[in-house]
């Protein structure tokens, strides 16, 4: 087991079963950080009926649980209603995956001991940080789709799966719904958002990996068939072929990273070639296993420890920019071009990088209109402006200044980062109709009227990602030495707050007007004057988060 994962545990109670038995009678928040605003939330209400003013209207994926995006101070948190046992387990597992520097959402807290005003117990809530700039796959399919979007999503997922598997993480529930996507230059990066069924092992067996991928294939084909049924998938996409592509990409990447090479003693340069190839794939080699074959005539080489993020680490070191891998590669290329064009090839790259930041990168990203700052990452913007500059130059046959390319991009391309409110409502209604574990819906009539009514009420039953348990509670408990009372976080590694929920009764404004009037108009728009941005949904903090604002621009 990776020592980072072993150190990651905050929950030390010996027995996972205890967590269920010992459901606290008063509200209890076990958190990785202290955000005082957490206390002011209406924990005594089912998540599905939290006041709209609190919610960030972001697209959600399909899930069997109720999920909501909630404004908490300056941040947006994703909240998922699940049993305390599953919440505690997933919180812990996400923390370990974070320590392993794997691409996952950041866990924030587990809230247990929730009760309604009448004393009825409510399910626990797992709180995680909303991954900025990310989108569920459904939202990507709602926009103007490039023909190869499906393939690019699948490629990102294959990289994620290889990284998780290399770290010994068996997911048990891979699907597009359990992943969030970030744009990463021309590609995507995939982030795990749901670890309910996962187990962290020392290493995985072939059986575990293959089963995980087989599940992934089935789920993904199912999800695409679903999009197809909803006429959201381009006709030419063959769902089964996409599923098969995932397996093919996964296996080829896995092979490149783990296969043993066989060299003659005079072919040691091939080791370097292998490492370069891995670097090209975005992986760093930490350790190589080199041994001679039994006959003594051949050298066997196998990478033992590989870490993803080769280019992004290099860029981080040079510039302090923390970006996705392909974005980093793009930025590094531009940095190289800048060094060459300014005749500074002999100079230290660190110094050139500082100038490049000041003279090239920062002026461009400062041009991002305010209304888009929560929608597009600066590095992605920079990449797309460079792309646009190239297209423009090709068209007119001469170089185009970056500022011109940026203005043109802002005017003509940036609006694609908006999702119109109708589409957003559709995506979230879709998500709601997949929810299985909403207790409120259960008590409904057998003809399903209850759930339908709830939706028509505008009561968005949300969801991000889902599922029930399947595999490996024991294995996980073995590793942890048991996982139990989630309140027993260690003093150094988390906060453990016992709260009497009554204290907060009344702290929560029950009337919408406490939040002032709606319909703030943000006229800043794209800066080109080509569009007006009407925030028709949420006036909570439009400057910082008009990601919430549903925008309709032609």
């Amino acid at each position, binding site marked *: 087991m990776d020592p980072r994962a072993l150190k990651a545990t905050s929950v030390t109670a010996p027995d996972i079963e205890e967590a269920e038995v010992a459901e606290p009678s008063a509200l209890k928040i076990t958190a990785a950080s202290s955000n005082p605003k957490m206390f002011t939330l209406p924990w005594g209400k089912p998540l599905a009926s939290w006041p709209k003013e609190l919610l960030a209207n972001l697209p959600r994926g399909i899930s069997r649980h109720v999920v909501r995006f909630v404004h908490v101070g300056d941040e947006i948190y994703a909240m998922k209603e699940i049993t305390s046992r599953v919440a505690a387990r997933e919180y812990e597992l996400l923390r370990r995956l974070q320590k392993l520097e794997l691409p996952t959402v950041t866990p924030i807290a587990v809230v247990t001991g929730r009760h309604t005003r009448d004393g009825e117990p409510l399910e626990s809530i797992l709180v995680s940080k909303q991954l900025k700039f990310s989108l569920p796959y459904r939202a990507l399919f709602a926009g103007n789709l490039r023909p190869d979007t499906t393939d690019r999503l699948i490629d990102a997922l294959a990289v994620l799966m290889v990284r998780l598997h290399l770290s010994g993480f068996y997911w048990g529930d891979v699907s597009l719904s359990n992943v969030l996507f970030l744009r990463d230059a021309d590609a995507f990066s995939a982030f795990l958002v749901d670890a309910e069924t996962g187990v962290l092992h020392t290493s995985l067996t072939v059986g575990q990996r293959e089963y995980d991928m087989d599940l992934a294939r089935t789920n993904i084909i199912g999800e695409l068939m679903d999009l197809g049924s909803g006429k959201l998938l381009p006709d030419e996409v063959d769902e089964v072929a996409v599923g098969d592509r995932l397996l093919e990409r996964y296996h080829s990447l896995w092979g490149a990273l783990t296969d043993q090479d066989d060299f003659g003693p005079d072919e040691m340069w091939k080791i370097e070639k292998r490492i370069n190839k891995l670097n090209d794939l975005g992986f760093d080699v930490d350790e190589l296993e080199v041994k001679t074959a039994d006959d003594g005539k051949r050298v066997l080489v196998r990478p033992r420890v590989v870490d993803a993020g080769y280019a992004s680490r290099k860029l981080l070191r040079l510039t302090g920019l923390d970006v996705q891998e392909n974005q980093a590669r793009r930025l590094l290329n531009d940095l190289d071009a800048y060094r060459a064009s300014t005749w500074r090839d002999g100079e230290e790259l660190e110094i050139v990088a500082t100038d490049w930041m000041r003279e090239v990168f920062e002026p461009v990203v400062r041009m991002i209109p305010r209304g888009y700052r929560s929608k597009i990452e600066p590095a992605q913007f920079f990449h797309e402006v460079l792309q646009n500059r190239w297209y423009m130059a090709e068209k007119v046959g001469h170089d185009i200044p970056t500022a011109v390319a940026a203005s043109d991009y802002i005017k003509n391309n940036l609006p694609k980062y908006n999702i119109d409110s109708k589409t957003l409502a559709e995506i979230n209604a879709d998500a709601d109709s997949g*929810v299985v574990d909403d207790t409120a819906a259960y008590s409904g009539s057998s003809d399903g009227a209850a759930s339908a009514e709830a939706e028509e009420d505008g009561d968005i039953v949300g969801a991000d990602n889902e599922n029930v348990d399947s595999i490996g509670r024991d*294995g996980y408990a073995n590793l942890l030495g048991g996982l139990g009372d989630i309140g027993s976080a260690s003093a150094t590694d988390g906060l453990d707050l016992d709260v009497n929920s009554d204290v907060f009764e009344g702290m929560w404004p029950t009337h919408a007007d406490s939040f002032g009037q709606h319909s703030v108009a943000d006229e800043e728009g794209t800066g080109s004057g080509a569009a007006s941005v009407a925030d028709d949904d949420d006036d909570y903090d439009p400057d910082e988060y008009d990601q919430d604002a549903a925008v309709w621009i032609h």
Partner: protein
Amino acid sequence: MAKVVFDHVSRIYPGNTEASVSDLSLDIKDGEFLVLVGPSGCGKSTTLRMLAGLEEVNKGKIFIGDKDVTTMQPKDRDIAMVFQNYALYPHMTVADNMGFALKIAGVPKEEIRQRVEEAAKVLDLTEFLDRKPKALSGGQRQRVAMGRAIVRKPQVFLMDEPLSNLDAKLRVQTRTQIAALQRQLGVTTLYVTHDQTEALTMGDRIAVIKLGVLQQVGAPTDLYDKPQNVFVAGFIGSPSMNINTHPVVDGKAKIGSDTVELDKAAVDKLTPEDEGQIVVGFRPEDASLADPEEANAFSLRVQNVEDLGSDGYIYGDIVTDGFASQAAATMSDQNKLTTIRVNPRRLPKIGDIVKIKIDLSKMHLFSPASELRLN
């Protein structure tokens, strides 16, 4: 459908010296619902994952039907892990939600429709087949999710704590549904849980496992009435069995200041390693209030009483020489107090000292040294 055989199976995780599952031999009969139950970390999920092919088998063999599947890939084993993800797809009809995996597997359309219709009948979803999930209630959505596993017609269902992320109310409801469904379908099922109530209410047979070692396999009543060792006695049943170690004097157990008769054949089986002691167990419902002068009864100081309407419970400490003592090693609930079920109309008061008589025919006697059953 098929039987499942674990033949002396062991699993040792890399880097561990102790086996997580040790020399497990277990038969699951064709069509049987077998529940594997035990505390966290006991190896029950490891056992299930070995059957699924998700965990290597270090020693021994596993058979599904007559096929040795020990080294076979999971997808070739014809098993279904029930209750994995199963959010529903909003744009697909109920029928497509249930049958899409068959479509991927290339099953002909007519056969898919036939299997889906069969499953829908069992799940009471026939009239909803052409509707979208949006039109269903939560309970119906849950059944559609189950339908996905059913239409595959696997040889074996594997369920690993499938109810763990449902709240208490839904859990009871779904528990009943799963058990009824399994019986209707007759598919061999291995069900893993830490919850002995789930085990008792659902399983045809229960296998209790502790620290990787199988403790006892049997029908729920076998385990309840004749637990083979102290662990099973303490694990199965709620409220749990009262279990105490007492000195044996003249063939009788000395409980506090009192003596209680024991089964002679059982006492004869005690060995020198037991050092003149015996473990006496009895369930709360197998003892009753006795008259103050009655022989074969022991004194209990009442620490708490509960009136549940239909039942009353007394929680108390055994009295030795006039003092209530908690020194004896006990394994019952309620802070190690002795629990007795009584008529709720005759509840004593807190602080009273009452006499308790154990039904001799329902007494469970164990060797302190081996912890094995003596009677």
